[in-house]
């Protein structure tokens, strides 16, 4: 029994003022108090034990958390570094894609400039000959012939201007294409732009691969007119779609040529259609290549997605195209039937300000 309770019990036992009965009552009460005390002490002891364990656990947890925090910090640093690396790699790749498409262009450009320059030279030379002849006819007094020659010379001078401007346009297009900073929006004749890039893409691929050949099918809607766009950006999109279309149809041709059945009658064909709709303009590039399987069509606009062998594809063409079209508040959509071909449709909004032009 608790010492203090024992002391009280002893005092009560020795006391003569209490009756035996009262002593028994106090005795029992004290015993009960002692029992309660023992239980309380036991409970307290148990609570203390729990407290100690909890404290230990807490300490352990805190330590663990601290370790984790340090690890996270480290991971964060690493992640930031990776992100920076990724950003710079991406910038490099975007530039590489630009340069690759420029490379595709340069060969086409060389070819495209040669023809107009030849015309400029030829029509100049021939005009000089014609004028010499005209002098002769003047002396002969043959006014009819003089008139005929003069008209030819006028026509030739118009052709010289036309082909000179053609060469000029091609060079301007090339310079704009290679420029890194994004250009300004300007009112641009969509059909002219499309046709220019189509020819560049075609001759570019042709000069890289001599066996390359495809039919071109162009359907330009004359009512399309001008649209306020960044011409070199939209040009880049068109170049990309056309390059992809040529690639796809040419791959199919190569595949069929491998077969013994002699199915090599296949003629790769790429069609470009422009169309004016109510409030937007559509530019559609379609090919008769092998199409895009259903399970990957959702991925083609993702950066770096490519099914082409290394060195032949960056997987950035469509993703850049998507960004450019979105920046113009337009849409880029793909439809494809496996084995039949693919069509990619650019649609650009016509704003009121464009309508009045």
């Amino acid at each position, binding site marked *: 029994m608790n010492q203090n309770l024992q002391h009280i019990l002893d005092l009560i036992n020795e006391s003569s003022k209490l009756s035996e009965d009262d002593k028994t009552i106090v005795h029992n009460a004290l015993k009960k108090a002692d029992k309660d005390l023992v239980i309380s002490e036991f409970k307290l002891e148990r609570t203390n034990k729990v407290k100690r364990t909890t404290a230990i656990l807490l300490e352990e947890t805190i330590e663990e958390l601290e370790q984790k925090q340090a690890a996270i910090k480290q991971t964060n640093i690493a992640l930031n570094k990776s992100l920076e690396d990724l950003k710079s790699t991406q910038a490099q790749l975007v530039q590489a894609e630009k340069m690759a498409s420029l490379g595709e262009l340069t060969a086409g450009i060389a*070819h495209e400039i*040669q023809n107009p320059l030849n*015309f400029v030279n*030829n029509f100049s030379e021939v005009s000089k000959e*014609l004028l010499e002849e005209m002098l002769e006819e003047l002396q002969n007094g043959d006014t009819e012939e003089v008139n005929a020659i003069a008209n*030819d010379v006028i026509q030739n001078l118009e052709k010289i201007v036309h*082909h000179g401007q053609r060469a000029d346009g091609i060079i301007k297009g090339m310079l704009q294409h290679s420029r890194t900073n994004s250009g300004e929006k300007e009112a641009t004749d969509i059909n002219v732009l499309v046709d220019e890039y189509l020819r560049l893409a075609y001759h570019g691929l042709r000069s890289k691969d*001599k066996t390359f*050949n*495809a039919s071109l099918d162009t359907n330009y809607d004359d009512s399309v007119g001008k649209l306020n766009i960044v011409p070199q950006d939209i040009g880049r999109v068109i170049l990309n779609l056309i390059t992809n279309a040529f690639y796809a149809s040419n791959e199919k041709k190569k595949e069929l040529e491998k077969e013994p059945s002699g199915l090599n009658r296949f003629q790769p064909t790429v069609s470009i259609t422009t169309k004016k709709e109510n409030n937007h303009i559509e530019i559609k590039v379609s090919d008769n290549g092998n199409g895009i399987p259903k399970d990957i069509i959702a991925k083609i606009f993702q950066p770096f997605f490519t099914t082409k062998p290394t060195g032949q594809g960056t997987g950035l063409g469509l993703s850049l195209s998507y960004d450019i079209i979105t920046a113009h508040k337009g849409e880029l959509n793909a439809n494809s039937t496996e084995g039949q071909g693919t069509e990619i449709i650019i649609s650009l909004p016509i704003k009121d300000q464009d309508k009045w032009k």
Partner: protein
Amino acid sequence: MKILVVDDEQDVKVLFQQRFRKEIKKGELDFVFAFSGEEAIKTLETIAHEAVLILSDINMPGMSGLQLLEIIKKDYVAPPPVVMMVTAYGDEENFNTAKALGADDFLTKPVDFKLLKEKLIQKK
């Protein structure tokens, strides 16, 4: 003899008509024009009974000049037409292919019309 000029550039026609103005006027040379390989084949069918000299560009959309050359040299059993190919300067690959396919003569771009005139009059 007819001379069939095949080139996808429309202005080639005007240019030839002026470069050979005198010869055409005097009836010394007779030109026909086609703006694609496909069109050239069709034209050839309509003038099958006449002697023809073909002057063809190589780089054309659709049927290329080389494909046209191959078809002409294969499909025309009767004395096949004389074919002159116009190749880009320094383009060995196309030159060799055309030679292997049976091209009779070559001109390099830019075409030297004086030389062409001599050749045409001599082959006539």
